[in-house]
């Protein structure tokens, strides 16, 4: 197991390096020159040159790449080019609100999708199954933006059940007041594709021989579904779940923007608009690392879920 872990971690290095090279060259190719925006409305070519020099983007590419690699190793990505705020502080302060929004959303989405998938699997081909699948397709077909605009207007403005927008410093108040509507709207969109996917995973298992054997032995349908089927369908579900984990680091841009939540999603989009490379670099590297770690975690969880899986 330890040998496997070391091997996997060792394999992460070239993958990460590939990501770093891709991000670096993409940014330098299409990322835009921030100096022209930072210089303001009336700047001379000398002013632009001065800003480029201060940002270090007038240095040779290999030198800039080396600085990038050093930043990854040290974990210090410097300051935002637009606001001078340290990048580490941006992530430290903006990740909290994003997580407050996305962790409950992920938990709820998984729980609801798994429960409903089990339910429709038990009644496969029935009116309930077909209705839910049609409803899922319809719900998936509408953009999150529409849900947000309509949901905010109806539930927050007209009915007054939730605040239109806002965020506080207290986790409990955010969870019970400000995050509720955004989470519910996010759930409306995200639960449908998960439900369809999990239903497929579960139906794959329901048709297996071991289920028939269990039924022949007289095991109850509830036990078959909850214990045998769910455990075996767990591997792809866990994979799907873990693949979604890195997204926590990129926030939920639309929800954050409409509900004035000071999350990381807004910050990253703003950084892209402003060509604020330090933030873009940090976000990309963090997400790449999180993806690699989530992959590793997933492989290890397979072993827990299914002892037949041999990691060595």
């Amino acid at each position, binding site marked *: 197991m330890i040998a496997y872990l070391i091997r996997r971690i060792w394999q992460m290095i070239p993958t990460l390096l590939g990501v770093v090279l891709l991000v670096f060259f993409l940014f330098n190719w299409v990322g835009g020159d921030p100096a022209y925006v930072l210089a303001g409305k009336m700047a001379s070519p000398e002013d*632009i040159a001065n800003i480029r020099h201060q940002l270090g983007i007038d240095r040779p590419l290999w030198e800039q790449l080396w600085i990038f690699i050093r930043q990854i190793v040290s974990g210090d990505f410097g300051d935002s080019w637009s*606001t001078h705020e340290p990048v580490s502080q941006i992530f430290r302060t903006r990740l909290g609100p994003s997580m407050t929004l996305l962790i409950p959303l992920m938990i709820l989405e998984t729980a609801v999708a798994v429960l409903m998938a089990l339910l429709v699997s038990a009644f496969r081909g029935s009116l309930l199954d077909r209705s839910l699948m049609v409803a899922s397709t319809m719900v998936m077909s509408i953009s999150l933006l529409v849900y947000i605009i309509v949901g905010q207007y109806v539930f927050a403005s007209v009915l007054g059940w939730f605040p239109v927008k806002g965020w506080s410093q207290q986790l409990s108040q955010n969870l019970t007041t400000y995050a509720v509507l955004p989470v519910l709207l996010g759930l409306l969109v995200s639960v449908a594709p998960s439900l369809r996917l999990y239903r497929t995973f579960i139906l794959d298992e329901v048709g297996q021989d071991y289920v028939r054997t269990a039924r022949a032995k007289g095991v109850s349908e509830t036990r078959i579904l909850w214990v045998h089927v769910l455990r075996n369908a767990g591997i792809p579900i866990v994979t799907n779940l873990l693949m979604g984990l890195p997204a926590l680091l990129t926030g939920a841009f639309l929800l954050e923007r*409409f509900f*004035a939540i000071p999350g990381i999603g807004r910050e990253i989009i703003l950084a892209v608009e402003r060509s604020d490379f330090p933030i873009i670099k940090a976000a990309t590297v963090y997400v790449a690392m999180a993806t690699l770690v989530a992959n590793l975690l997933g492989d290890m969880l397979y072993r827990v879920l299914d002892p037949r899986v041999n990691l060595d």
Partner: protein
Amino acid sequence: MINHMAKRLIILLGCMVSLAYAATPEKVLHLELSAAETGFDPVATSDLNTAAIEQQLFEALLTYDYLARPVRLIPRLAATMPVVTDQGKTWVFTLKKGVYFCPDPVFKGQLREATAQDVVYTIMRFMDPKNRSPYKFLVDGKIIGLDELGDEARKSGHFNYNASIAGLEVLDRYTLKIRLKTTDYNFSHAMAQPMYGIVAREVIESYAGDTASHPVGTGPYRLGRWIRSSLIELEKNPNFRHEVWDFGSGSDPKLGSDPKNNPDPADARVIAQMKGKTIPQIDRIDIQVIEESQSAWLSFGKGELDMIGLAGQFAPMALTGDRLKPALIQRGIRLDRLIDPSIAYYFINQQDPVLGGMSRERIALRRAIFMAQNDEEMIRVIHKGQAFRNAYPIPDGVEGSDPNYRSVLNYNPREANHLLDQMGYAKGPDGYRRLPDGKPLSVRYTTSLSSQDRELDEMMKKSLDRLSIHFESEKLKFPEIIKAERQCRVQMRLSGWIADYPDGDNFMQLWYGPHIHENNGSCYQDPVWDRLYEKTLTMPASLQRDTIYRQLARLLELNGVTKVSTSHIRNVLSQPWLLGYKAHPILPSVWSYLDIDDTQRPKP
């Protein structure tokens, strides 16, 4: 015995004062920002949202009268208006005495008075290359000796703030003489910008590297709680001097510029609500960053915001023509409407190999393209009616504007086609026009990736179709557009400019030859135009200068350089409990001049 009674009396009085104080509810103003702030070091500020907050935190030497229209400069940190001599080359500012910075640990509990030396330090900071100030242009190349200090700093990497220069002379603790290299009657406007709010050297040095998080100014408010990109709370500056609200009525812009004969009736309400009150009346300002206009609109509807700038897409919901909808009037909501000191203008790159140049054919082609632009359609579709046709490069309300100017480039596709036919731009077999030498002709229009700019593309395509000219779309990210523009690589674009200060020069400089690679996006260089413009630089605002401005504007049209299209209308909605509000065209915020009647505010 008497001593004992006196003590009791003092305690009793103390209790009464405390009770009275406790009984006075805190007045809180709830506002929104449409984009996140970028930090509160004035020297590094370039956006209006941040400037709005800095207007309350810092004080420049001068400011603009709250009610006067057209806008008028008045002293702020200065005790009086500057004494200007030597044909606008020498400016003497005298500071108010007893103006103190807000408390900060750097001052170690002592009151710190603002002095002339602080003004010198503040101005010098703009030339320090390390600060890479976006508003450096207001002093760049103007003050004797200051550019040289900047040049030295660029070479040595260190700006010498201790240097004495002839251009910035401290005459005494409160008096400063500024000597300019050349005549500049607009220098006073530079000294009224919130970015030129006075800072204390020890504060800046103490928080070096993080000055954006430590705004310490002399303004009516100081920074309270701050959650970056989310919430900014301003609280009263306890060291703010005693200042009384005492603005006189401005003039009614529809009637004339004389406030005595044509007072603005809206000002009477503002004056009645505010006159004689101490500045500021509001204890705390709670500013939330709300980037989506729907969220701001709904929050305002619920009374959670006291004032909002009405976004274009909500204008049809709030307004009928230029009036509020009856439902909003019934709720006591007020509309303040003014023409922004801004222009939207088309320009064509004069150095472009296809459209540029000064031959008769090229000039005719450019003029035809401009004449195919339907400005009324632009106002209807893009601005939802919240703009008006303005053909003059200097917008209404800005010194030098001309409401009677008649453009020669008004929408007239028939005339435009006729012009092209005359000049030999014949149609090819595909139905599209070709250059007189038979080569293909197309116009490349540069826009950003935003959804509104997609609509602009559609409109331009329609305009060029009217002339049977091929349309090409160039989509770039905003920083790339600016870069391409400065490198004279943009062929045609619809650009915008909002006044930094309310003088025609701030607009006319957009076409000045030496400003190519800076902000002369049309890359226009015409010795005749440049000499005329240079003449205006040494003139104070006057009829003579206006006459030259008209010549300059006409030349821009005749040479097919630019077509000024529209000016935007700003609509601000305020709740009935907000007192004393009048929209100001130049000041980024006027919050310290307002009050709140909490009895009218709905109880939660």
